[in-house]
C-alpha cells in the first residue's frame, strides 16, 4: 500500500460512545485514516499507544512502540516524509525530547500530528494535569524560527474532533500540528460523537519520498542549506506560511453580552472558568469567557475588540503565567490584565477564580468612585 493512497476500513459509521479523552483521540485517529503511529509510553497518555496496539489487527495501520521519544519523532519524520498520515503522542517530558525532530520537520515541511497530554513540570514533575508547556507549544519549542499550528481541546469531544482538524491542517500547510491537551482531558470520561471513517480526504503529496520514477526528479527532504541566502529564503517561505495560517484562528466567546470583565482561558481551565462566570453572574458581575481554540494562531484581534466594553481582563492558566503574555500583547495596555494560576499539577477551583473576579470588580469600584 502506498501511504498516499487512502486507508480503507470496513465502513465504520458515526456513533456515540462514553470514552476517556485519550481513547476518543485514538479512535478518532483510526477513523481519520491515520496510517502510522510511533510512540513511547508516558503517563497520562499511555492509553493512546495501548488503544492503537489493541485495535491494529482490525485495521490496516502501522503502530510501533519506539525505544524513546527521540526515535519515535524521527520515525514520524520518515513516515511523514514518505507521505503517510502519521502521528505521535506523549506528555511533557517526552515532548521535550521530541523538539529536535519537530524543528527538523517544520523546516523540511513534513506534515504530522503531535499530541501533548500535558503534566506538571518542570523536570519529571508530576503526572497531574498542567498547562506549563504553552510557551514550548506556541513559540517554537525547538531551535530556529518556526511555529506549530496548535489546537487546544477542552472536552473529550474536541479530543476526537481535533485529530481530524489536525491532520487536515497538517496536510494543508505541510507542517507539524500540535494538539495541546492535559492529563485531566486525557483521563476524563465523557460522551463523544465519533465521526464515520473515511470522511477525511487524502491529498496528493508529490514531494513525498516514495521512490523516484524516471518521470520526475528525485525528491529530497532536508532542512540543511549551507548558503545563508538559501536558508533565509527557506525562512521567508516559512514565515509566509505562518502568516497564511493566521486565517485558521479559532476561539469562542461565552457568557455576558457586553461583559464588564473578560476571562481568557484555554482547555480544561476554560471549563472551570465557565463555572466561575455563573457564580459571578449570581453576584451581578457580567463576565464573559474568551476561549482560544487555536493557541497558534492566537486570537489577538478578538481579544483587542473586547477592550471596548470590558474594563479588565483576567487570564487563568495551570502554570505560572504564559498565555497571559499574549493576552497582554492583545490588550496592548488599554485595560489591566490580571492573572490567576496554579502550578505543578494543581487545578484552580471555580471558587478560586470567583475570588479573583470579585477582587478585580472591587478594585474597579474603588478606582471609579
Amino acid at each position, binding site marked *: 500500500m502506498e501511504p498516499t493512497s487512502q486507508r480503507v476500513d470496513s465502513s465504520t459509521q458515526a456513533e456515540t460512545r462514553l470514552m476517556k479523552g485519550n481513547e476518543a483521540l485514538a479512535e478518532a485517529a483510526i477513523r481519520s485514516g491515520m496510517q502510522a503511529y510511533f510512540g513511547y509510553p508516558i503517563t497520562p497518555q499511555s492509553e493512546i499507544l495501548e488503544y492503537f496496539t489493541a485495535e491494529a489487527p482490525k485495521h490496516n495501520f502501522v503502530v510501533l512502540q*519506539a*525505544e*524513546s521519544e527521540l526515535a519515535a519523532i524521527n520515525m514520524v519524520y520518515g513516515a511523514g516524509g514518505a507521505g503517510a498520515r502519521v502521528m505521535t503522542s506523549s506528555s511533557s517530558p517526552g515532548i521535550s525530547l521530541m523538539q529536535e525532530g519537530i524543528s527538523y520537520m517544520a523546516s523540511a515541511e513534513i506534515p504530522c500530528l503531535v499530541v501533548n497530554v500535558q503534566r506538571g513540570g518542570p523536570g519529571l514533575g508530576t503526572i497531574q494535569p498542567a498547562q506549563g508547556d504553552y510557551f514550548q507549544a506556541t513559540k517554537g519549542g525547538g531551535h530556529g524560527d518556526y511555529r506549530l499550528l496548535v489546537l487546544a481541546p477542552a472536552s473529550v469531544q474536541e479530543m476526537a474532533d481535533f485529530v481530524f482538524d489536525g491532520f487536515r491542517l497538517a496536510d494543508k500547510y505541510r507542517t507539524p500540528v500540535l494538539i495541546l491537551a492535559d492529563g485531566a482531558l486525557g483521563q476524563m470520561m465523557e460522551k463523544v460523537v465519533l465521526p464515520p471513517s473515511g470522511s477525511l480526504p487524502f491529498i496528493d503529496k508529490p514531494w513525498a*519520498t516514495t521512490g523516484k520514477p524516471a518521470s520526475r526528479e528525485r525528491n529530497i*527532504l532536508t*532542512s540543511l542549506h549551507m548558503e545563508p541566502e538559501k536558508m533565509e529564503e527557506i525562512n521567508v517561505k516559512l514565515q509566509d506560511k505562518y502568516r497564511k495560517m493566521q486565517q485558521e484562528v479559532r476561539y469562542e466567546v461565552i457568557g455576558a453580552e457586553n461583559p464588564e470583565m473578560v476571562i481568557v482561558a484555554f482547555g480544561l481551565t476554560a471549563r472551570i472558568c465557565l463555572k466561575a462566570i455563573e457564580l459571578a453572574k449570581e453576584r451581578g458581575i457580567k463576565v464573559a469567557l474568551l476561549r482560544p481554540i487555536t493557541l497558534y494562531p492566537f486570537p489577538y484581534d478578538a481579544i483587542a475588540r473586547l477592550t471596548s466594553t470590558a474594563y479588565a481582563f483576567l487570564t487563568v492558566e495551570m502554570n505560572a503565567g504564559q498565555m497571559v503574555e499574549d493576552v497582554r500583547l492583545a490588550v496592548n495596555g488599554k485595560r489591566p490584565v490580571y492573572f490567576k494560576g496554579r502550578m505543578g499539577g494543581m487545578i484552580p477551583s471555580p471558587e478560586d477564580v470567583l475570588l479573583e473576579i470579585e477582587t478585580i470588580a472591587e478594585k474597579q469600584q474603588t478606582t471609579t468612585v
Partner: protein
Amino acid sequence: MESAATTNHMEIVYERPVTLTDTPMHYCPGCGHGVVHRVLMEVINEMGIQDRTVGVAPVGCSVFAYNYMNVDMQEAAHGRASAVATGIKRVLPEKYVYSYQGDGDLAAIGTGETIHTVNRGENILMIFINNAIYGMTGGQMAPTSILGQVTSTTPYGRKSDLNGFPLKITDLVTQLPGAYYVTRQSVHTAAAVRKLKKAIEASFKYQPLKKGTCFIEVVSNCPSGWKMTPIEANAWMEKNMFPLYPIGDLKVPKQN
C-alpha cells in the same frame, strides 16, 4: 543497464550510472565516502531498483549524499537515520530503504537507534562508514577511534581510562537476533571495492525476503581528519584499524 553518458564512437569503459547525479563530489581527495557512494549507486542501477529505493542521509561528511545519489532521499538529524529509515520502511514495506551513516552518527549519538533498529530486525540496509574520526566537524575523537589515536579532542592520544575503548558496534549488532546479514568491508583496493559491491548487492537481494536488518561496516579513511596524505592514510588504516576491525563477514544467512 541504463547510463547517463551519451554514446559515441569510442568504446565506453567507464560511465556514470543514472543513479549518480552529474555533480562534483565535495569529499577530500582519497576519501572513502565517494567510492562507497559510487558502488552503492551502481548496485541500485544494475538491479533496476532506482524507482523503488529511498535513502536516508546522516549528519556527517556525507550529509550531502542526496546531492550525488539520484534516488529519493531524506536527510535525518544527527544519529537518527535508522529511526527515519524505520519510519519510511514501515509505511513503504515494498520499497528498498537504506541508511548511510558515519561512526559518530551510528555509534555515538545514534547508538540507541542503531541497536533497536537492528534488534527489531527492520528490513533495511544500514551502511556504516567507520573512519575512526568525526570528519565533518574537523577531526574529533569518534567512538571507533583507536587507543592512542591523536585527534583534535584527544591531543595526547585516546586513553581508555579517560575516553573508554574503541566501540566495535558491528560486533555488537551481530549478536542481535534481528540482524540478518552483517559484514565488514573496505574500499582501499579495487578488490576490496568489488567485495563491497557484492555485499551491497546481497543486502538488496535479501531486503524483499523481510528476514531482518542487513548491516555493512566499511572500514574507511579520513585523510583530512587524520592529517595524512591519502596514501599514508590507507597505510595507517591497514596497520591500525584492520587488526581491530577485521575485514570479513560477521553473520551470513544460514541458507540462501
